[in-house]
């Protein structure tokens, strides 16, 4: 059941935004399939009523007081950007709210 089809590999690659060359895709299908087969055994473990693990030493979320701290200057924020225009990051146009 978990053995992956090529279509599934492509779907996951798209969800993860990973461009795979055809040979990469084929290898991925093989590798992932084998790994996932190995995990089939998990389904047999009885976990009814067992809570999901959150922390080794249970704790609640600490709250931060609402005090603003200095921001990075825009020049620092943009310093490592591969593409920029003035003080903004630059990406290929996003048309119609979609992303292709």
């Amino acid at each position, binding site marked *: 059941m978990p053995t992956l089809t090529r279509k599934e590999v492509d779907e996951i690659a798209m969800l993860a935004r990973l461009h795979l060359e055809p040979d990469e895709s084929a290898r991925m299908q093989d590798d992932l399939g084998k790994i996932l087969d190995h995990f089939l055994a998990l389904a047999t473990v009885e976990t009814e009523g067992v809570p999901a693990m959150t922390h080794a030493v249970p704790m609640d979320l600490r709250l931060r007081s609402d005090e603003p701290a200095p921001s*990075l200057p825009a020049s620092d924020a943009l310093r490592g950007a591969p593409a920029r225009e003035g003080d903004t990051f630059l990406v*290929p146009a*996003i048309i119609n709210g979609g992303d*292709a």
Partner: protein
Amino acid sequence: MSNLDELLENWEPVIGLEVHVQLATKSKAFSSSAVKFGASPNSLTDPLVLGMPGTLPQFNQHALELALLLGVATESKIRARCRFTRKHYFYPDQPKGYQISQYDEPLCEDGHMNLIVNGQIHRVPLTRIHLEEDAGKNTHVGAFSHVDLNRAGVALVEVVSAPVMHSSEEAAEFMRSLHRLVRWLAISEADMEKGQMRCDANVSVRRRGEDRLGTRTELKNINSFRFVQNAIEHEIARQIRLLETGERIIQETRLWDADLGASAPMRSKETAEDYRYFPDPDLPPLVVDGALMGSILKSLPELPTQRFERYIKQHGLSPDDARTLISERTLADYFDAAEQAHPGQASGRTLANWMLSELLGALNADGKTIDGTPMSATTLSDLVVLVENGTISGKIGKEIFEESYKTGEAPAAIVERRGVQQISDEAALWEIVEQVVAANAKQAEAFAAGKDGLFGFFVGQVMKLTQGRANPVITSDLLHKRLGR
């Protein structure tokens, strides 16, 4: 839109709203970067906002307090323990590649919004209210998009109504009510033009009498109250027309274009978006304990619709006037302060009238709002009392108002200085009436003969002789007596 009215005879719209409200915190939801509208691009970021490697979220206490305040104000059920969830999608305005939000354990559930419809309170159930962070902004320029992350990470609540509204008017009223409520409680400035309150609408239609819900579309990019009504109406009409010609409704997201007055489908992708929700491992469970709830409940003031009802019941205000007074908390507080300055000496109705016509009129002309009023509630109340107890006439009162508003001088002092106390002494007025009638015998005859319009002339003459100080009611009585009818 009479055509729509015709269509609506056979079809019932079903509308649900998802409203994002920016919380009025000084720093962001999970980062201490400041929150400010209109700052220069990318000047309100830090390594966490930029999604840099190694950064981790820290949750803003005040964001929690504001969200809880909204939860109790809407009588929602508050979870004692809830989690933050990661919602994954790739978009340049979402630096981490995921948004921190809440999915299956929202902070608040099953509350309701109180709307005022036809002068009555009308409840719209809420499905949930949850916490999340905002995304940055993309601006389209030619072949590129420019990304500004100033807004990324700002604390939001998402308020989701049950899909139980049945008209665009109701939906618009929902937005106005929510807007009023969050401003009332200082939860958010909620300026739609600044993007501090944004709404998406889920719209479907079904034949009247049917139980099943139709296919719904999601409308986005609605960023003003006006658009809420227009966009929803347009979508309702579009869907009905399609269905009446035998077509299907495609479940899709559509973007509203205000310039065109129409919506268009967002480019759909081959695969449906899968957000791959899972509990954020960087944030342990959020616990709301009794002490916190206690302090939130204690801080809850009288809510707008509660005041609306009180104004009608206690002060006999009309629903319209009551509604106007609660449109801003400062207005309602002003009214309450004016009413309490001289309890029993000036009726609520009278005070409301003076506020809504004289005061707001003057403020409007000045381009001011109640927040910038030069006349305090006590002063206005002082003035109204002077009119109510007969010290000055209403007409004079209006003149005094103008002067006090402009100069800040106390109304009583102006009255004293100008010597414009009302003359209510009957004997004194009778003398003047006699004088006036005697001096205008011809008109008196004409009036007696049936020329009704001349009554005003006599009133005017009395006013002239008394510099406008004659008590109008007594004057009128005495004139009638003297003139014989």
